[in-house]
């Protein structure tokens, strides 16, 4: 719950992706929770476009892993972010060994057992946006645009998006676009705020270093991301970072990690490729890698993916507040008049 008196919170991130087809999706989720722990962003909704219950359970387990460090007062009220799960068969299953491995090693609670333990992604995303300050939300579409396109069809949703969402960061790999071509076209045609496309070449040029898995996670014997990474491919390997790049740009768009193209219009071709035409009134841009930033980007990846969960503080420190009240009661009232203003 956000209270106006608390000031504008960090950007709310809605992360809609596939989960399980490639490891960068899991890495990106971890990185977003890393940013969340450092108060640089807030993860306000997570949804996936592949209809795999275990993939949703994995997302839930990652969320609980990061929330596990919170204080008992906060845990009392923590009931986890609902995970949106598409049931649309357009996106094929991606129940890969990485999901199984992470879930089987998890020592944390798994709350998703049936489809009804997940959320319908369409109202989930819409509802999460309604709770954000104007222009303080960013949506990341890291997989096929199946869920995002459906949100656009909800009555009144475009108005909510226009009001709340600064931009959509869309990972436009050929797989993502081609898997649900109509959805991708609809999003590029109807999305009411700017779209920044993250192309295939970006993720491939910025590999997440597998060495980080070996050395940066010693603090946790049961980290779900480590289990997933090890199970995804034979170690050692470096992983392309499409969703990571999208997540980093979404949270730190103005911090010089990437360059962006001039505005234009993105066209979706039948084979899933994208074609960009520069236009001054265009709402689309694409991400450009600045080679001078490569090292910095990868360093940020590893630092944030491996960031330790940060204990949340209760909004109202229950015990301390009660103590302060008692202290105030015990203190005799100050009879002296307040000092006159200078």
């Amino acid at each position, binding site marked *: *719950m*956000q*209270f*106006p*008196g608390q000031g504008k919170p960090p950007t709310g991130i809605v992360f809609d992706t596939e989960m399980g087809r490639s490891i960068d999706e899991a890495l990106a989720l971890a990185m977003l929770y890393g940013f969340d722990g450092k108060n640089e962003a807030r993860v306000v909704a997570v949804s996936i476009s592949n209809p795999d219950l275990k993939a949703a359970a994995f997302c839930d387990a990652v969320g609980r892993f990061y929330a596990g460090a919170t204080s008992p007062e906060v845990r*009392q*009220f923590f*009931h986890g972010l*609902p995970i*949106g799960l598409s049931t649309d068969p357009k996106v094929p299953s991606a129940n890969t060994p990485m999901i199984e491995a992470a879930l089987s090693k998890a020592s944390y609670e798994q709350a998703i057992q049936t*489809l*009804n*333990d*997940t*959320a*319908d992604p*369409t*109202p*989930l995303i*819409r*509802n999460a946006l*309604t*709770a*954000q*300050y104007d222009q303080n939300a960013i949506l990341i579409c890291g997989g096929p645009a199946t869920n995002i396109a459906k949100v656009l069809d*909800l*009555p*009144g949703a475009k108005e909510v998006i226009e009001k709340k969402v600064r931009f959509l960061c869309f990972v436009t790999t050929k797989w993502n676009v081609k898997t649900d071509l109509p959805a991708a076209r609809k999003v590029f045609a109807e999305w009411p705020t700017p779209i920044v496309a993250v192309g295939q070449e970006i993720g491939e040029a910025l590999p997440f270093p597998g060495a980080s898995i070996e050395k940066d996670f010693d603090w946790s014997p049961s980290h779900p991301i480590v289990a997933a990474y090890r199970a995804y491919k034979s170690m050692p390997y470096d992983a392309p970072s499409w969703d990571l790049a999208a997540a980093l740009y979404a949270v730190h768009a103005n911090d010089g990690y990437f360059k962006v193209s001039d505005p234009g219009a993105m066209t979706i071709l039948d084979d899933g490729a994208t074609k960009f035409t520069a236009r001054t009134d265009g709402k689309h841009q694409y991400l450009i890698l600045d080679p001078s930033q490569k090292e910095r980007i990868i360093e940020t990846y590893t630092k944030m993916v491996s960031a330790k969960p940060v204990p949340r503080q209760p909004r109202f420190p229950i015990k301390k507040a009660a103590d302060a009240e008692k202290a105030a009661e015990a203190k005799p009232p100050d009879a002296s008049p307040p000092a006159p203003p200078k």
Partner: protein
Amino acid sequence: MIVTRKALARRTFLRGIGTTIALPFLDSMVPAMALAGTAKKAPVRMAFVYLPNGMDMTGWHANYEGKLHDLPRTLKPLDPFKEDITVLGNLTHNAGRALLDGAGDHGRCCGSYLTGIQPRKSLVDIKAGISFDQIVANQIGNQTRFASLEVGLEDARQAGDCDSGYSCAYTNNLAWRSETQPLPPVLDPRALFERLFGNGVVLSPEARARQGRYRRSILDFVTSDTRKLETSLGPTDRRKLDEYLSSIREVERQLEKAEKDNSQIDPHMEKPYGVPADFAEHFKLMTDMMTIAFQADLTRIMTFLVTREGTSRSYREIGIPDGHHPLTHHRNLPDLIEKVAQINNYHMKQFAGWVEKLKSIKEGDGTLLDNSMIVYGAGLADGNKHLHEDLPTLIAGRGGNYIKSGRRVVYRKETPMCNLFLTMMDRMGVHTEHFGDSTGRLEGLDLT
């Protein structure tokens, strides 16, 4: 074939001085040809029974889906009627959430419950939305004497701050005629009685007391009409009519008792004249009249705000002197949670009494309950955490042989409560594509 039998008009009344009694649905009202197989269906009715301060959800949730068998603690009183109820899971009211408006979950959850709109946080400049029961009332209300009836049990003001800057208009009303005009519930049983059977004039307590000295049953004023009607009825209809008029007489007796008790307790009390001191009696009296209103087709739409949202009413009658609202913020203390569970159970017992009554009334091939959709629920789930998802919701009745009851149906998380409303609107014959934050109809509720 020559059909000589003439059907009794559905809108037949027994009239007397200052009295108009509508009749229940009788076989004689069905045209003779219709009896051969095209019988006119009884109308579908809907009502909302709203409970404040959320629920102890551990006592509400069954740990299974599908056919109801072992009911959890709060639902236990409905055990004899479990074939007649449908328990719904995971329905959500996003409009009840803070959405940047800060504290005030009680004000929001009640103000948004039937409107599907987040109410404006204001004490004076109130704004919510037309509630969906009133959308239905606007469409079909002309078919009955009252487009809708709004009933409650707790005396409550309509202005002032009832929750963190939310006007009492939000916590103390369920139905909204327009986005700025709530419809306050009738709290006084005598007022409701006179509304149902009188000529629209509600007497002052003094005038009523004066009249009471000479009071006879309203049935006495319609004796002549009753006798005439009885001669034209068959034995089944005569029995139905007798039962119906007896139920009105029973309500009168309850009213008289309440008025007598009140005058003995404290003649200066501010409580409305006919309000029984006992909660259960008050509940029964109001629901008895609501039953008659449905039975006689005086209305097909009712809202029942059991007590106002955020109420701190105590329940001394079951040994709980603590306020309801403070108890729900139980700090996980077992004895406080137990008291909340007892209050939830006590409410449900009263509701089960109403369900029993509705089920006892035959109507066509089924019962009055079969032709109704009585939603029992709250605008908060866990009252301690102020959650607006997985709201405790059940439907008693089958909505005219539509709802496949006797089940627990769990939907996916974030499924809008407004989807249920859209589905109910369909059953009431009012079709629209969108209401509040609906994303579609509620699937899996019907018999198919």
